[in-house]
């Protein structure tokens, strides 16, 4: 039973590793020859296997194991990456995911995976899934400096020989480099590291003797040997290494791998069968460089990942609460310092204020996570869905680093899935249709996130067919959402908004994916419950864009503090257009309703003193402070007594006893420790 306490950790980490595998598999699909990516996948699979075995989830462990074998084959260039193979690997990752979810749901993580297993085994044995073995038209363009050829001192195992052979076939030089450090060298490991770094800039290190681990531990005398594949000349490599200080001597020897093979007793007939993709040969050094760059980035990412810890969000909430108490005490201290007129105390309190301000920023930032967390599962989903629907879709993600409050992040996943599914199913046309209207076969879907003011916008746009106004209207009239009479007066935007009405789907055919008329209304409800809104824009034949506007955080909002008689209220800045001061004579009356003329439009006034029954403590004034607020297109002017100023506040609920207080959306605690109520402008405007 002791295992239980690790179960959560196991599930979390498994999900992370599966996500990493998904991500890297997608990358691998784009650059099938990148061994670094395969290594990443392999690492995740390996960790997952280990964890699963430790936790006693045999099925999970064994499937991972078989997958690992295939990955190992790819890694060692025994198996070449093809779309078919990736499909099977993806499928097995799906199965792994299902198992992990089953475990998370309290199940035993068992699952029938014989089909996938047999496919994986086939791949592992080198049998092609479709008999489409690629021909080996690799001309052995071996360029070697045979004059410098000397007997090789290194021995290579089968895999290394394979790698070296391929490298030569691709026009790389294979060099054996013997490096001697100066005897007075103090930080041997550091020099080794620098040498390796230099070498990795020019090529790829295949082997080093002694091994890197040993070298890093400084368990060697003064020299070591590495095998490098590179495009640079041996002279160049040598000069580069000599730039590292404390190097005594560098000997670069070119190796002809074919000669090595013939001289070494071990003959490898295997590599003749090696299915290598044609384009592999053509891709030369530029590609190699990008590969290198990618690995560097990945290394960086790994480094940063290791520096994070998991913290329960509840603890952050508690931290925030405690911090707020501190702020309140700070306010009191400020007051005391003023009363005592002690400059020393005042200085200390001011310093404390600055620190607590920084502290607040840090605490708030801790709750912010990049939308990447939600976005990273989409490429996989889009790929699968497009395949199912026999469409070709390219998903572009922009601004994945945009940060949002954790509470919002947790909620937006489902609505976005809905929108993406919608775009793939309804938006993007089939390749044939696209070609016939002169578009490229592949449809594009862009998922874009960006900050703007106090909001984060997330857009899902496609270059598909767009929304057909007539079709939407017809359906809406059929379902009684609009009347035939009002049809003409609706603007395009209003018509598109109808898509969010429940029970309306314009799909001609109900597919597995969408068309059941649920979805967009759910999306709208969800987004609105998060304090955001969703709009749609479309041009027939050119595409559709869904735009979601979300508050940066659910717990901190910017407000305008106002005084109504002697009570303080907070009005969310997001609904304020501007503030104004008007005279008595500017106020007009229309149908018993006081209104003002605000920049050409008639805005009704709501006197908060009357509306909230605030006890009168002030003399009536001929000048009125007015906050103009809006809800969508509609506006209203809230009459208050004075503006206090703009402030970031922590949103709090009124508790479970006072639910649904009219026109109050919550409360906050001010610097002086008192509670101020937050006005819900949406409820004020009808």
């Amino acid at each position, binding site marked *: 039973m002791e295992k239980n306490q690790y179960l959560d950790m196991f599930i979390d980490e498994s999900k992370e590793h599966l996500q990493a595998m998904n991500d890297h598999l997608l990358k691998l699909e784009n650059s099938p020859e990148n061994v670094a990516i395969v290594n990443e996948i392999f690492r995740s699979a390996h960790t997952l296997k280990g964890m699963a075995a430790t936790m006693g989830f045999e099925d999970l462990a064994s499937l991972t194991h078989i997958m690992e074998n295939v990955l190992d084959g790819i890694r060692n260039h025994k198996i070449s990456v093809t779309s078919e193979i990736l499909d099977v690997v993806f499928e097995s990752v799906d199965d792994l995911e299902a198992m992990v979810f089953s475990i998370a749901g309290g199940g035993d993580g068992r699952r029938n995976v014989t089909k996938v297993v047999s496919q994986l085994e086939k791949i592992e044995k080198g049998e092609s899934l479709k008999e489409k073995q690629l021909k080996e038209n690799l001309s052995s363009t071996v360029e070697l400096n045979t004059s410098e050829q000397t007997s090789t001192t290194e021995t290579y195992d089968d895999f290394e020989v394979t790698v070296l052979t391929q490298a030569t076939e691709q026009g790389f030089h294979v060099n054996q480099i013997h490096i001697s450090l100066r005897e007075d060298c103090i930080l041997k490991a550091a020099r080794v590291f620098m040498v390796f770094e230099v070498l990795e800039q020019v090529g790829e290190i295949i082997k080093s003797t002694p091994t890197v681990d040993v070298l890093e531990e400084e368990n060697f005398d003064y020299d070591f040997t590495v095998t490098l594949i590179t495009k640079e000349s041996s002279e160049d490599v040598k000069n580069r290494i000599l730039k590292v200080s404390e190097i005594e001597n560098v000997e670069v020897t070119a190796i002809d791998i074919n000669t090595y093979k013939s001289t070494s007793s071990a003959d490898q007939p295997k590599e003749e069968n090696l299915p290598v993709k044609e384009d592999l040969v053509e891709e030369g050094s530029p590609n190699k460089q990008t590969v290198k760059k990618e690995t560097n980035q990945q290394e960086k990412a790994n480094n940063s990942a290791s520096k994070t810890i998991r913290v329960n969000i509840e603890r952050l909430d508690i931290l925030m*609460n*405690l911090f*707020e*108490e501190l702020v*309140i005490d700070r306010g009191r201290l400020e007051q005391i310092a003023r009363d005592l007129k002690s400059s020393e105390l005042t200085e200390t309190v001011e310093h404390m204020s600055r620190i607590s301000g920084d502290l607040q920023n840090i605490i708030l930032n801790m709750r912010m996570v990049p939308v990447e967390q939600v976005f990273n599962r989409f490429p996989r989903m889009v790929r699968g869905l497009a395949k199912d629907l026999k469409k070709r879709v390219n998903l572009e993600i922009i601004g994945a680093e945009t940060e949002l409050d954790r509470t919002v992040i947790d909620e937006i996943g489902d609505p976005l899935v809905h929108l993406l599914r919608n775009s793939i199913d309804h938006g993007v046309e089939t390749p044939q249709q696209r070609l016939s209207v002169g578009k490229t076969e592949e449809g594009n879907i862009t998922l874009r996130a960006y900050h703007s003011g106090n909001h984060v916008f997330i857009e899902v746009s496609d270059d598909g067919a767009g929304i057909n106004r007539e079709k939407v209207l017809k359906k809406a009239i059929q379902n009684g959402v609009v009347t035939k009479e009002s049809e003409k007066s609706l603007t395009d935007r209003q018509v598109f908004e109808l898509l969010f009405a429940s029970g309306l789907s314009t799909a001609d055919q109900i597919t597995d994916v969408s068309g059941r008329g649920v979805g967009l209304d759910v999306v709208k409800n969800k987004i609105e419950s998060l304090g955001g809104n969703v709009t749609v824009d479309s041009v027939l034949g050119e595409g559709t864009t869904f735009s979601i506007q979300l508050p940066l955080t659910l717990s901190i909002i910017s407000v305008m503090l106002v005084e109504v008689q002697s*009570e303080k209220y907070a009005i969310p800045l997001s609904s304020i257009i501007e503030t104004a001061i008007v005279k008595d004579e500017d106020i007009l009356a229309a149908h018993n309703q006081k209104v003002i003329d605000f920049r050409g439009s008639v805005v009704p006034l709501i006197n908060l003193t009357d*509306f*909230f*029954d*605030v006890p009168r403590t002030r003399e009536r004034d001929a000048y009125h402070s007015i906050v103009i607020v809006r809800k969508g297109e509609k506006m209203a002017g809230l009459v208050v007594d004075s503006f206090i100023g703009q402030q970031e506040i922590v949103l*709090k*609920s*009124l*508790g*479970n*006893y*006072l*639910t649904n*207080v*009219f*026109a*109050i959306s919550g*409360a906050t*605690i001010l610097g002086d*420790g*008192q*509670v*101020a*109520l937050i006005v819900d402008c949406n409820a004020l405007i009808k």
Partner: protein
Amino acid sequence: MSESNLVNEIKVIVFQLKDEEYGVEVNQVRSIERMQHITRVPRTPDFVKGVINLRGVVTPIIELRNRFGIDEVESNDSTRIIIVAVGDMEVGLIVDAANDVVDIPNDIIEPPPEVVGGIEAEYLRGVAKMEKRLLILLNLAKVLNPKEIKEIKSIEANG
């Protein structure tokens, strides 16, 4: 009665409203606070005095005198706010004074008479007679029933 019954005691916090002494079970009480600034919440029933900042948590406050139809008085030095928790709600009750903690044997608790001190029986759990004192035990779940707020609201709206 028998000895075993004596073990069945409940511990209550005793507070005062006007001339009567009331009791709430100690395990429902979170804390007892002095009177402090209360932010009025508009458009709520009269007995909801507003909300306070209770160590970072916004907590609603009820004027118990008003809730039970007793004339309100100005708060003074002995006025206390008893923070009680019922279910997932935390609410503060304004009382005239919080005096004491006593153990009451279960067997001296009698069902409430129809009306005690002007409070309807449904808000009461029972009445305990202890020597010269008479303790009225509150049924907090009933007193704090949020549905009551709505009912009262609609009555007020109609009136």
